[in-house]
C-alpha cells in the first residue's frame, strides 16, 4: 500500500491523520479489525438460517405481491369509475365473496411481513446505538403485529348488516 496519501495527482484528498505522515516501521498505521473477526462473544455457529430465509421471503413475497397489489390498485383506482365508487356498500359487495376475502387476507399478511422485514433492514442500517435500534424494532414489531391482527379481524368479522 502506498504510504503517501496526499499526492495531489492521485485524485484522493488528504486522509484524516494522514496529512504529512508516512506510515512505516516507526509510525505504524492503526490496526483495523477485520469485520468478521471471531471474538469471545461470537456464537459457535454464525451460520443461522434466519437472514437467508428472510432474504428469500422478500423475493418470493415480492413476486406474489405484484399480482395482488397491482390487481388491487386496478380494481380500486381504475375500473368502474375509480375511487368514486368506493363506500361501505362497495366493500360489502366485495367481501361477500370468499375469493376477495382470501385475496385481501393474503395481501395483508404478505405486504405487512414484507414491509416489516424491509423496515427491519432499514433500522439495522441506520440506527447505530444498541438501545435506539432495540426500541425502534420493538415499535416496528408491535405496529406490524397490531396491523396484521386488526386487518384479519376486520375481514373475518365484517358484518354487512351492522345497521
Amino acid at each position, binding site marked *: 500500500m502506498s504510504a503517501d496519501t496526499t499526492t495531489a495527482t492521485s485524485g484522493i*484528498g488528504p486522509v484524516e491523520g494522514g496529512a504529512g505522515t508516512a506510515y512505516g516501521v516507526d509510525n505504524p498505521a492503526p490496526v483495523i479489525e477485520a469485520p468478521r473477526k471471531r471474538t469471545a462473544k461470537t456464537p459457535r455457529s454464525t451460520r443461522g438460517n434466519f437472514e437467508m430465509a428472510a432474504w428469500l421471503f422478500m423475493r418470493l413475497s415480492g413476486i406474489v405481491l405484484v399480482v395482488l397489489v397491482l390487481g388491487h390498485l386496478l380494481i380500486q*383506482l381504475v375500473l368502474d369509475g375509480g*375511487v368514486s365508487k*368506493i363506500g361501505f356498500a362497495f*366493500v360489502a359487495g366485495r367481501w361477500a365473496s370468499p375469493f376477495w376475502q382470501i385475496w385481501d387476507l393474503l395481501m395483508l399478511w404478505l405486504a405487512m411481513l414484507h*414491509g416489516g422485514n*424491509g423496515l427491519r433492514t*432499514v433500522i439495522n442500517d441506520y440506527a447505530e446505538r444498541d438501545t435506539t435500534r432495540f426500541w425502534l424494532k420493538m415499535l416496528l414489531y408491535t405496529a406490524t403485529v397490531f396491523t396484521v391482527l386488526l386487518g384479519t379481524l*376486520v375481514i373475518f368479522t*365484517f358484518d354487512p348488516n351492522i345497521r
Partner: protein
Amino acid sequence: MPAGTLYRGREGMWSWVAHRVTGVLIFFFLFVHVLDTALVRVSPEAYDKVVATYKTPIVALLEYGLVAAILFHALNGLRVIAVDFWSKGPRYQKQMLWTVMGIWVVLMVGALYPVLGHAVRELFGS
C-alpha cells in the same frame, strides 16, 4: 475538487435508494390504510366519511404519487430478483433499469386519466 467521503454510485445506487424510499412510504400508507378500512366495523357512516376524503382533488394527487411509488417498487423489485436469480442478471442490470423506467413512464401516463380525471372534473367543472 475536494475529496468527498460520501459514496456516490451510479444508476445501481440511485435505484437502490429509490427502492428503499418507496418501500418505506408504502409501508406507512398500508398502516394507515388498514386503520381506515377498519372503520367498516364501526359504522357505514364512519367509513363513508373517511373514504370521502379519498375522493378530494388533493388526495387524488397523493394517490397518483402512491401509484408512482408502487409501480416503481414493484417493477424494480422484479429487476432485483432477476439480478439475483438470473445468471445474466448482473450483466444486464442497467438495461433492465431503463426497461423498468420505460414501462413505469408508460403506466404512469396510462394512470393519469383514471386516477386524476375525477379531480380535474371537480376542479374545472364537467
